[in-house]
C-alpha cells in the first residue's frame, strides 16, 4: 500500500497529507513526534480512505508560530478536511493528536461519525516532561522492531515540534475541554497500551467517566505507540469500531468450526 503525497491550503498554511485507500474517510492526526505512516495506516487503508495529515509546524513544514492553541489548530485542521472535499469522517488522533482530535470533536461534533483516541494526551494526572529524543524511541515502543519507519527525527525538526507542542498543548487537566467532553455524543474509542509509560492505561478510566459514549480498550503488549506495537490488532478493532460504533461490542465472526 503506497500513500500519495498531497497538499491542501487552509488558514494560509500549505498542509501536506498522505492518502491511500478507498471507503469511508478516516482522518489521522499524528503525535508529538511528527507525521509517520505505520503498518496500522496501511492496514486501515484496505477498508478506508486514510488521510494522514502533517499538522502545520511538524515534519517538513515551516515552524508554526501562528496557532495559539489546540482549539484554534483544530479549526485549521477541519478547514483542511473541508478543502479536500470531505463532509463527514471518522477521526483518529494519536497522543497530542488525540487531544487535537478532541478539540475538533467538541467544536464540530456533527462532522464526525466516530472518534478514535490512541493513547491520548488530553488528560494527564501525573505530568512529566517529554523524554529527550534519544530516549523517546524505547519509551514509546514496546516493539521498536515493528516500526516501519525507523529514521530518527532530525534535531532541528524535533526542536521546532517541541516548541509548538509546548505552546499549544494546554494544561494537563483542562477543565474547559473536559466540560465540553462531558457533552460530546460522538462514539469514541479510547485505547491505551499495557506497557505505556508516558500515558499509562489507568488514564483510560477518566475518558470513560467523562465522555458519554466512550469505549475504553486496553491493548496488551503495547506501549504509547499502540498502533505500531500491535498494528494488526489495532487496525482490526478500529475498522470495526468506526463501522459499527457502539454495536462493535457484539462480535460478528462466526465461531462455527465445520458445517
Amino acid at each position: 500500500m503506497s500513500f500519495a503525497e498531497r497538499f491542501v491550503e487552509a488558514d494560509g498554511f500549505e498542509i501536506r497529507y498522505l492518502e491511500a485507500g478507498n471507503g469511508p474517510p478516516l482522518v489521522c492526526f499524528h503525535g508529538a513526534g511528527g507525521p509517520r505512516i505505520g503498518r496500522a495506516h496501511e492496514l486501515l487503508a484496505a477498508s478506508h480512505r486514510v488521510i494522514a495529515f502533517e499538522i502545520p509546524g511538524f515534519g517538513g513544514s515551516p515552524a508554526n508560530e501562528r496557532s495559539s492553541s489546540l482549539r484554534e489548530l483544530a479549526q485549521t485542521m477541519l478547514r483542511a478536511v473541508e478543502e479536500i472535499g470531505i463532509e463527514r469522517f471518522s477521526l483518529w488522533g494519536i497522543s497530542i493528536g488525540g487531544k487535537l482530535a478532541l478539540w475538533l470533536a467538541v467544536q464540530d461534533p456533527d462532522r464526525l461519525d466516530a472518534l478514535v483516541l490512541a493513547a491520548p494526551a488530553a488528560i494527564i494526572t501525573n505530568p512529566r516532561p517529554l523524554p529527550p529524543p534519544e530516549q523517546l524511541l524505547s519509551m514509546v515502543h514496546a516493539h521498536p522492531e515493528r516500526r516501519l519507519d525507523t529514521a530518527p527525527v532530525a534535531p532541528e525538526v524535533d526542536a521546532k515540534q517541541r516548541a509548538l507542542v509546548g505552546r499549544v498543548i494546554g494544561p494537563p487537566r483542562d477543565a474547559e475541554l473536559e466540560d465540553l467532553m462531558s457533552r460530546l455524543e460522538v462514539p469514541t474509542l479510547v485505547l491505551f497500551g499495557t506497557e505505556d509509560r508516558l500515558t499509562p492505561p489507568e488514564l483510560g478510566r477518566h475518558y470513560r467517566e467523562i465522555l458519554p459514549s466512550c469505549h475504553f480498550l486496553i491493548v496488551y503488549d503495547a506501549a504509547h505507540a499502540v498502533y505500531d506495537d500491535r498494528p494488526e490488532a489495532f487496525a482490526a478493532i478500529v475498522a470495526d469500531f468506526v463501522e459499527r460504533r457502539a454495536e462493535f461490542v457484539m462480535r460478528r465472526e462466526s465461531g462455527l468450526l465445520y458445517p
Partner: protein
Amino acid sequence: MFSIVPYAGPRSGHGWPAPADGYSTEAAQASMERALAQFELADELGFDWVTVAEHHYSPASLTPNPMVMAAAVAQRVKRAKIALLGSNIPIQNPVRVAEEFAMLDTLTGGRLVAGMLRGTSNEYATYGINPSESRERFMEALELIVRAWTEPQPFGWLGRYYEYRTISIWPRPVQAPHPPIFMSISSPEAAEFAAAKRINGGLAVTTLDRARESVRVYRQAAGTHGWEPSPEQILYRIAVHVAADDAQARDDWAPIAAAQAHSGGLGLSRANPAADDAATRAGYYGRDTPRQRSRLHAGGDIDERIETAQLMLGSPESVLGQAARLRRELGVGILELIFIAPSSDQARRSLELFGTDVLPRMREL
C-alpha cells in the same frame, strides 16, 4: 493443608484420560466428603490455609473446577484462608477466572489465595489448547485477570490470545488491591516472570536441590527488579505423615512406598506419555526442559524422599526438624502439606498430631 481430592473407590482402567469403567458414585461422594471433613479439621486445628487444585479426567483428583470445590469448602472452613493452586489459567477463560475468584473472595470475606498455574502437560489436551502457547497465554491471562479485578470502569481487552470488547466484573474482590497471587517458580522462565511482576512463588513436585535452584533464580531476578521476597511469599508443597514415633510413621508409610515403587511414582504428566512427549516437543517445559521433566521422576525410597524433601515423615520432633530445614535452606515461609496415609483414619490422626504437636512450634521457626 492441600488435598488433591483423590477418588477412593473401585476402578478398572489406568492412564490418562482415565475411563470411568467401574466408577462408583457413592465412592466419589464419600471422597469429596472426606476431603471437606479434612479441610474442616485443618481449620479447627489452626492451619493457616487449605488448598484445592485443578486437574482433569482422572481419579487422581475430583476437582476439575477448583472454584466449585472452594465454594463448598467456604461453607465449612470459617477461619483459614482458602487457596486455589491453581486455576490453570492458560486453558480457561480468564475473565471467567477473575469473576469466580472475586466471587470466592466475597463469599469468604477476603480469605482467598488466588493461585494461577499452567497445569500439568496433559491438561492441554483437556480443552484443546496448544501447549506451545501455554506460557504466553499464562502471562497475558494473568495480566488480564488483575486488570479485571482492579479497573473500576468497563474496559475492553485487545490481547494476543484474548480479546474482549467489554469487561466489568461483579462482584469485586474484597482484598485490596486484589487477592494475593501465587504462581509456580519451578522453571527459570516462571521464576523470572514472577519476580518481574512481584508475584509470590510456589514450589511443588520438586526436590530440595531443584527447589534451591528455582529459589536462587527467583531471588536473583527479584533483586534486579528492586525487591526481596519474604518467607511468606515462597510456598513449598510436600507430602507428610506424622505418627507417635519415627518407627510407627515408617510402618504406616510402608504400603504407600510399595505402591509408589510399583507405579514408578509417575504423576498425571506421564500417565499419557504421548501427550507429554508432544507437549515437550512443543516447548511446554521451556529452556530448562531436562531438569523440569526430571522433577516428575524424582521418586526414591523413603529415606531418599525425606532427604530430597519430597516427604516429611516421622515423629512430631522429626517432622519439625524437616520443616526447619526447608525454612533454613530455601527460606520458605509457607509449607503446603499433603497428608498421605494408607487409611483415612491414619491420615486424620496424622493431621491432628501435626496440628497439636508440630504446628504451634513451626510458627517459631
